[in-house]
């Protein structure tokens, strides 16, 4: 009788543990997905638009700004700020969804 009770408790505990682990793994995977997307944009606006393709973009002009030059000295910085605030929103939602907020 005692043994049976013990086995049941043990079973429940391992299930909870496994559920928690998979929950954590899912949360982590989702987080990594966000990071991959946001960091690709980070790379694109600074290294690609501001450095690698700067001459090509400089042929386009918006007002007095050549586009490549604008990305290197203005645009990339604005997008960096926006990226962090998007990340904050996404993560706050994710924390709620998985009930892991602090």
């Amino acid at each position: 009788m005692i043994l049976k009770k013990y086995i049941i408790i043990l079973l429940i505990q391992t299930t909870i543990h496994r559920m928690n682990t998979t929950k954590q793994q899912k949360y982590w995977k989702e987080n990594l997905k966000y990071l991959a997307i946001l960091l690709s944009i980070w790379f694109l606006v600074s290294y690609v638009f501001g450095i690698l393709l700067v001459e090509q973009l400089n042929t386009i002009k918006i007002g007095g700004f050549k586009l490549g030059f604008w990305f290197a000295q203005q645009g990339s910085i604005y997008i960096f700020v926006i990226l962090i605030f998007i990340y904050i929103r996404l993560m706050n939602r994710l924390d709620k969804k998985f009930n892991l907020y602090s």
Partner: protein
Amino acid sequence: MDIQTWTWVLVGLTFTLYIAIAIWSRASSTGEFYVAGKGVHPIANGLATAADWMSAASFISMAGLISFNGYDGSVYLMGWTGGYVLLALLLAPYLRKFGKFTVPDFIGDRYYSNTARIVAVTCALIVSFTYVAGQMRGVGLVFSRFLEVNIDIGVLMGMFIVLFYAVLGGMKGITYTQVAQYCVLIFAFMVPAIFISIQMTGNVIPQLGFGDTGTDGVYLLDKLDGLHKELGFHEYTSGSKSKLDVFFITAALMVGTAGLPHVIVRFFTVKKVSDARKSAGWALLFIAILYTTAPAIAVFARTNMIETVSNNKYEDMPQWFKKWELTGLITFNDKNNDGLVQYVADTHRNELTIDPDIMVLANPEIARLPNWVIALVAAGGLAAALSTAAGLLLVISSSISHDIIKKIINPKITENGELIAARLSAVVAVIIAGWFGINPPDFVAATVALAFGLAAASFFPAIILGIFYKHMNKEGAIAGMVVGILLMLFYMMKFKFDWFGGGSKDDWWFGISPEGFGTVAMFINFIVSLIISFFTPAPPEKVQQIVDNIRIPSGANNAQEH
């Protein structure tokens, strides 16, 4: 009132404010001294981080550098802002969840080894000391130019103020002083920028103004490109550096920013993980206000400067020109004896040299703004230099009292003993920094820029792998840090100080400058860490659980006892 009286008034007022805040928010425990008791509001922390981050280099030197280098100056703009994306996404939330006091704390615990801790403390001290000496020098420069006191006395006054509020207030005092300093410095930076933007383009917003047309109906940037071509300089809006080098320098500055201990430690001061993310966002927003204005100031100042001096009579030069000539930061040599100033790219015909450092300080005078605006810039420059110096001194003192004394030499030290040790090490650190400020060795200026490379080559990979790769072990991390920082130091000494046989630009490996080499050293650190960890035992189960635990935000504790 004249400029000097205004400067004394504004500097006096702001200094009184900083001291008042320090007395009001003095620290009473080690938790308060190291991390402000972990109760700082995310917006306040964002403001403090921004002030901490923006040093004399950002405030005084950066716009001038961009002004002289045009597109090539973009490396600073992207490099010193893009790092915050890495901080917010890859470091801040996890390090806050980990919940200790310092960066070496994380390295020591995550890699279950005091050797790793010692390597990390050493790297933190090297990076912070090279950086802080430059700040004290900046304080001296502002004092000597605007208050016309001896540069050494300027440094001593700066030391006294920092000593007062860093030693008394610790992180708590520094945080709230930095909030005030941010307000002073951003106001001081924006007021002249807005004035000049209206004057030159009629646009109130400088960020838009420098893409606008001037009073003659020509786009300002087109006009500047034309002036540059005329005088033989490379076009302002396109660069002269190699693309590869621009790429590597930008990366080294970004990763270095994310690896600087005095920046990382700011994210230990908030209440919870989501607040750490938020304060990184606020910090970058507050930083971006200055960083998007700097390139506008650069264009305004460059155009104004060329138009004021180029081919005009030397005797008609305005008062600011003569005043800066006295400091030796502007020099004129009438080579062809025609009494006109020839400012051209060709060094044989060029008669004028201007130190880029004076552009921000001289800008309001060049644009003939009122005296109080000029004095305001001086107060802003001091706020920028002092806030960064204080943040760095705190890292140095906590490295010594917490990481070395408490964790390695004498773990049984009492809370009170540790607090006294922290204050004493802050005093010693201020004195050493001040000594460097008064007797700057030649290598200080060169190494400030390289502090980023050192941070990128040492900390960044160890922290990232510690969070994102559960199987990274102590052997891998220590080997990576040691190889990374030694390689960076070697390259820096070889090509900056001519040690180990020296070498010129043509000898650079793959054409990468010492400033950009941090990126290479960082990759090598990653590779060494991964290879070594593959052949050595995995970290203990307990450490792997720590990693699992820092990856989720729930359960972050308040100021952790140790």
